[in-house]
């Protein structure tokens, strides 16, 4: 993330300090808070740092490295790619998230990746609500050579899920990526609709969906914790993708989420283009948060 330079600068200000004292720790904590880690997580990480190094001589470079290591220790275990199981035909991936987080775009990017791997991909246009959501997914279908199953706008989303499952099975597709309408997790009716979609999918394949991917926007602050909590409860989220990390958005909330939920982070979005999806590298992400200008 480009934010690293700004954070890098403020960390360089620590260069003059020779001891890891209260003041330095507080500044570090503030750095982490500004990266959206949240007060609790930031305090825990600097607390760990303090236990190990308090009052020891430490250079800015070392502070940076130790801080990055602490963050990476939390994130390391969750950096796990999305794995397609060829035994499933299709491997069903349900994509969920709040409005505008980047679900449809991420589906397009994932479809491109699976197509490059030589897989047969079907996209289900499960956002039957938003204006031109279907057209948007169809364009991604054309771009990636994936077939798109759609109904008219305004139709039942669970019905569409049924159609998409059926078509993908008939086509003997390797992967079905099912798009859904954006929904805020505090809306009970919309969350119930998601439950229904999962039920409909299970009727055709009780092992499906094989992945439920929650797409999070890196610009989001502490509310992302609620998003994970509730989407997980309602539709059994199995992994995360964080988008828009090409901005200065820092996505530090991912550290708090990793600490609390331990859900895999499958990939990150770094732009609007078809190739702008990268695997999640915990070390690199941590270095960017700790202000290493070489990272990202």
């Amino acid at each position, binding site marked *: 993330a480009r934010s690293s330079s700004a954070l890098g600068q403020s960390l360089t200000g620590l260069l003059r300090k020779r001891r890891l004292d209260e003041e330095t720790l507080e500044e570090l904590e503030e750095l982490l808070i500004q990266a959206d880690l949240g007060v609790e997580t930031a305090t825990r990480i600097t607390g760990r740092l303090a236990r190990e190094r308090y009052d020891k001589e430490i250079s800015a470079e070392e502070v940076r490295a130790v801080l990055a290591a602490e963050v990476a220790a939390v994130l390391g275990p969750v950096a796990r790619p999305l794995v397609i199981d060829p035994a499933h035909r299709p491997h069903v991936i349900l994509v969920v998230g709040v409005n505008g987080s980047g679900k449809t775009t991420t589906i397009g990017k994932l479809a491109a990746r699976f197509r490059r791997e030589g897989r047969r991909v079907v996209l289900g246009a499960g956002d039957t609500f938003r204006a031109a959501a279907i057209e948007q997914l169809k364009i991604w279908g054309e771009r990636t050579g994936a077939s798109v199953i759609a109904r008219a706008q305004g139709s039942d989303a669970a019905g569409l899920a049924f159609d998409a499952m059926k078509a993908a099975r008939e086509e003997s597709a390797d992967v079905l990526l099912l798009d859904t309408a954006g929904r805020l997790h505090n809306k009970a009716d919309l969350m119930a609709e998601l439950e229904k979609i999962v039920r409909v999918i299970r009727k055709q394949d009780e092992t499906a969906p094989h992945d439920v991917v929650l797409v999070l926007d890196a*610009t989001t602050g502490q509310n992302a914790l609620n998003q994970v909590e509730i989407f997980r409860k309602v539709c059994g989220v199995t992994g995360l993708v964080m988008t828009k990390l090409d*901005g200065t958005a820092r996505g530090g909330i991912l550290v708090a989420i990793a600490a609390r939920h331990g859900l895999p982070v499958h990939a990150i979005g770094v732009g609007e283009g078809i190739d702008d999806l990268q695997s999640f590298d915990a070390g690199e992400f941590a270095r960017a948060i700790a202000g290493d200008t070489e990272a990202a």
Partner: protein
Amino acid sequence: MFESLQERLSGILDALTRRGALSDADVQAALREVRRALLEADVALEVVRGFTDKVRERAVGAEVVKSVTPGQMVVKIVHDVLVETLGSDAEAIDLNAPPPVAIMMVGLQGSGKTTTTAKIAKRLAERSKRKVLMASLDTRRPAAQEQLRVLGEQISVDTLPIVAGQTPVQIAHRAMQAARLGGYDVVMLDTAGRQFVDEALMAEMAEIEAAARPHEVLLVADALTGQDAVNLARAFDERLSLTGIVLTRLDGDGRGGAALSMRAVTGKPIKLVGTGEKLDQLEEFHPGRIAGRILGMGDIVSLVEKA
């Protein structure tokens, strides 16, 4: 999971049975909790600092009225300063210019620009009886122009015909031309989402502004935005003559600290808020409501007010 500032402060301050004026030490202890509450509500750190300074000035020496606790008193002061900072008076969309009046919508990707464009158009057409034209200048996102066209149909507001291959600046010119010829009162210009570190797109946005000379330039931002709210608001404010902010997704359960952050660094009013995906879910901004949300509290303020 969530503990309101009031509960936290009561732990610290209500132990004090002492009445009379709040001492420096009382306030100091309270402000640590205030800081934490604001940060947890996603108010940007730099804004929190300035804010707590203001609260300190106001609180030290303040008389605690008989019927409330010192904790309640501090919360009331925090609340008041929040409301003042957020902007106490509602400011409406200003159409006071020779027609066609252009309104330009800008913001990050997915913040809600296109939806808000249609919401505002609907409101101006229905409530203010204006003849409105909407134009999508988003040539980047797949089906973005189609999205606005469909929304236009839903609300019976005209949209500029889509011409493939034009640049956003060319579309802006065409929209203004069409509005003049068609006798429109208002032209809504929906632009593509952009990251503020994307220099090419930020420059393009400034070019669009120069071409259309909009009377209102509204930054559309997500109420769920975290610490970066200050940077994004500042970046857009530096490149454009922003006239206001629209906060979307207030129907979520976010604490909405971004509102305070953006208002504080730009000084620009929050003109409207989005409270849902439907096109009539657009409301006036109520600083008191956001303040209460940021603090996560119920009726403490009215309690103190009555006291």
